[in-house]
């Protein structure tokens, strides 16, 4: 094969790709934060002794674990507006899809951390007369957090990669911008190689940051 590489047309539109990268980071960060909130609510429901709280949470989590992520994007973008008789812009729909997905998975991460705390810790607190919620916030969760960090980081990386699906809703993320550049330059090899490298740099940087955070959060052990 003799293909002559030419990154020139792509690099001259690098500002478009940079904007895409920025949007990818933005949507990932917003979805992680919202996902944490969704995950916390879900795990509190899931672990509640009250069945009418635990059940819906379990169903919600199972639903997300057993459906393809792209379906959630389509559902929030095309289906939810029908239900609510409003239209959602791609950004909002993608954030909803990403944060509910990650929320469901974060809930499982949080639950894993919580149930890994030995029974003796619950008993030690209970024996003092602590309520369930006091025990949770003062004794169980603080210890569980350090065990949640590695799977949490792993899930967040999944989310970061899943943001590329937002391009299917025409959200101007890195992949979507690459498609635009490609349609202007007809240089798919250069365009998609470039953004693959950009994703790589993004994820490697994120993993360095995550490693620093991890050593911080697990310091007391």
């Amino acid at each position, binding site marked *: 094969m003799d293909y002559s590489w030419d990154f020139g047309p792509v690099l001259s539109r690098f500002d478009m790709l940079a904007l895409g990268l920025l949007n990818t980071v933005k949507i990932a960060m917003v979805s992680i934060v919202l996902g944490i909130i969704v995950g916390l609510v879900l795990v509190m429901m899931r672990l509640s002794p009250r069945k009418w709280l635990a059940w819906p949470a379990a169903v919600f989590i199972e639903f997300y674990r057993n459906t393809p992520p792209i379906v959630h994007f389509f559902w929030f973008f095309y289906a939810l507006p029908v239900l609510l008789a409003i239209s959602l812009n791609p950004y909002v729909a993608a954030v909803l899809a990403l944060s509910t997905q990650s929320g469901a998975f974060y809930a499982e991460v949080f639950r894993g951390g919580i149930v890994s705390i030995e029974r003796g810790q619950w008993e030690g607190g209970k*024996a003092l007369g*602590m309520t369930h919620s*006091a025990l949770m916030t*003062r004794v169980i969760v603080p210890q569980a957090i350090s065990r949640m960090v590695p799977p949490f980081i792993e899930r967040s990386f999944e989310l970061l990669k899943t943001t590329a699906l937002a391009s299917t809703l025409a959200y101007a993320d890195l992949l979507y911008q690459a498609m635009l550049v490609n349609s202007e330059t007809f240089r798919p090899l250069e365009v998609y190689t470039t953004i693959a490298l950009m994703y790589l740099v993004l994820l490697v940087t994120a993993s360095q940051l995550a490693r620093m955070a991890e050593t911080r959060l697990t310091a007391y052990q």
Partner: protein
Amino acid sequence: MNTQPILEVKGLHKSFADHHVLKGIDFSVKPGERVAIIGGSGSGKSTFLRCLNFMETLSEGEIWVDNERIGVEKNGRITYPEKQLCSVRERLGMVFQQFNLFPHMTVLQNVMEGLITVKGYTKQDAHAVAVRELAKVGLSEKHDAWPGRLSGGQQQRVAIARALSMEPEVLLFDEPTSSLDPELVGEVLRVINQLAEEGRTMLLVTHELGFAYHFATKVIFLADGVFHEVGTPDEVLKNPKKPRTQEFLRRFSEFAF
């Protein structure tokens, strides 16, 4: 002396699935009593103690604390509101075989925790109590240590200080020295003995029969899910009447010297 019991148990049964562990126990503790509970492994000593402060749910029977029946009757069923259980547990302090200290808190924070979250003390007040209780168990120099860095004996003394800080009316000890190296048993038993001298009301599950003899005002031999023999230390440990008790004690003295 005709004082009212602090703690009363009526017709207590406890099963785990179809394993019937406790088969009808009636029992009461008066202020100042010290009860040692002995019995074979798996006979239900821990289960009995844990039923008292509702670490286990009762299968049947009643627990009365300060002449108050624990549990609320609702449509013919007994329910146990969390608030009431917390109050019972606050009044019945418990010390575990495995200490169950909070590893992410310092020694001082461990002792302050219940005071702050349960009794609503200010930090300063909780601090003052914790300092006092830690001094009592001889751990004044360990305030800022992490529990994981202490010896088993020291950890258990922190756990005792933590229980004492709540000013419980009764202390429940479940084999407090069983997970300790032999040379560390003494320091914990000395602390418990000191509590006995203060006249505290205590229940102690133990395999340390020698200590039980000196410590207890009453000894209970638990077997087959019932209180098989109950009496003074002399009656139960020196002159047991029931063959089952005699057999149990014989196994203990087999290698005495």
